[in-house]
């Protein structure tokens, strides 16, 4: 895996050796684990009168990376955002169909969207650490604004989240510096740490590396492979090599419809659908 070798050479010798890369396709049905993280059935999403997603059904497997690919405007981000109810505050947005998370209906009337978002973390394309806060404050903000006050607990969670995001060694001496003093790649990993600190079970990533240089991208990809041991990850990406490198499953969306969903190896080597083949081989899109 060239990505991880590149990254290792840039780390100081004192840094922890990178963990061995996990196999690309994980065990799909580990015992005592729910078989499905998200179960999406007949999902339709409208913005005002414009239908963006059309009857999407798919099952996101746990502790694996599921990549969503497709040309711009095909509804990838819209799909991702319906998984943590980010459409709720968009005027005119309407969601129909059902999405369950570990068997629980996310859109049931008694479900509070803020609770859903605490269980489903999200990382955005453009890194967006809060500019008024230090590195440490950024990581703990989700806990603090959800009522956690104990200093010791906050510090413990902050360190754990930063370690999980492979950022601890780089920032442990400047935890109180402004978050914007970090480099672009570090800011994005800070955002990942911020999302991890509230201990979600799932991580959604909307093109998390598309604004980064190749080295920072490699670090993020390595991190994703590490995180999938503990989390279910759904990632939207424009970069098909990236999808092939990091994901176990791939969904191909086109014009708001799910064209094909299968193991990544199959999508990229032997897709069942002609459109998928045309897209992954670069004939359109």
């Amino acid at each position: 895996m060239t990505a991880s070798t590149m990254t290792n050479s840039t780390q100081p010798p004192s840094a922890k050796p990178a963990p061995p890369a996990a196999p690309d396709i994980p065990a799909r049905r580990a015992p005592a684990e729910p078989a499905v993280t998200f179960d999406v059935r007949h999902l339709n999403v409208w913005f005002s009168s414009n239908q963006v997603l059309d009857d999407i059904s798919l099952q996101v497997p746990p502790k694996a990376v599921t990549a969503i690919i497709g040309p711009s405007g095909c509804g990838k981000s819209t799909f991702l955002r319906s998984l943590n109810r980010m459409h709720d505050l968009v005027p005119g947005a309407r969601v129909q169909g059902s999405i369950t998370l570990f068997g629980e209906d996310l859109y049931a009337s008694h479900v509070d969207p803020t609770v859903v978002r605490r269980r489903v973390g999200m990382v955005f394309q453009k890194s967006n650490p809060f500019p008024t806060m230090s590195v440490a404050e950024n990581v703990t903000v989700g806990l603090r604004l959800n009522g956690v006050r104990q200093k010791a607990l906050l510090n413990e969670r902050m360190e754990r989240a930063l370690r999980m995001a492979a950022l601890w060694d780089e920032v442990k001496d400047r935890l109180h510096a402004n978050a914007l003093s970090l480099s672009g790649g570090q800011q994005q990993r800070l955002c990942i740490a911020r999302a991890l600190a509230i201990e979600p079970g799932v991580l959604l990533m909307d093109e998390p590396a598309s604004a980064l240089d190749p080295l920072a991208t490699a670090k993020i990809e390595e991190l994703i492979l590490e995180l999938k041991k503990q989390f279910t990850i759904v990632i939207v990406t424009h970069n098909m090599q990236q999808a092939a490198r990091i994901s176990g499953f791939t969904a191909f969306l086109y014009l708001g419809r799910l064209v094909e969903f299968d193991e990544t190896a199959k999508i990229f080597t032997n897709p069942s659908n002609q459109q998928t083949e045309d897209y992954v081989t670069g004939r359109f899109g």
Partner: protein
Amino acid sequence: MNDLYYNWRKAKSSFISAACFVCAVIVITPLALVLFHLVRLGASSLDWNFLTQLPKSVGESGGGMANAIVGSLVLVGLAAGIGVPIGVLGGVYLAEFGSGKTNFVVRFAADILNGTPSIVWGIVVYALVVIPMKGASAYAGGLALGFMMIPLVIRTTEEMLALVPNGYREAALALGIPQWKMVVHIVLKTAGKGILTGVLLAASRVAGETAPLLFTTPGNHFWSHNLSEPISSLPVQIYVCAIGPYDDWHRQAWAGALVLLCIALAVNVGARLTTGRNSPHLAR
């Protein structure tokens, strides 16, 4: 394209540039004239006594406007107590919670309020507060100035909140933070310096208002210890001195005007310096 045409275009360009420059000079000329005139006439009467002493009675020379300077600060403080909370919360409503139709109404109302002549505020407060309370008071003056601050603060707050990138709101919501906490702890904090600047500019703007105070708190010659009695203020004191018959009073009026202008300038420059230097948040 021949040389002749090129030269013609170059000439046109120079002409327009020159016209812009002349207009820019015309814009700053009045400011320079006002400053020059005030310094020439006011600086000679501006001394330590002017800033620390009460006005002398008619016929005596000397004395100062200390009570009016403090009174103006008190009035602006009262006005801010009314204008800032209502204005900031109104601006938050417009930027974060309101929908198209209500926003249109609120914005329209704020613009109308903004365009209301200040003498009208004086009369309104006179009718609503001074008559029922049977007398002018510092409270009434502060209220009139506070009403004037509300639309100014609403609009700057809304503009500053609109500059906060949506990514911060989404990031906060995605952490499961409720919307109101997101607004208070993330959005308002990010826009804080800009809103503070707007508040300071609004305060310095109403600090110079005379008309709303004529009916509501016409001033006195002493230190005020009770806010339910009239309090003196710089603009009203300047007005009284300027229309008085004595040369000494006229000199006092010039000195008072110079002080008022210096305060306004200091607040403006200070506000712009703080935001200019320390707001990397919104520069992205």
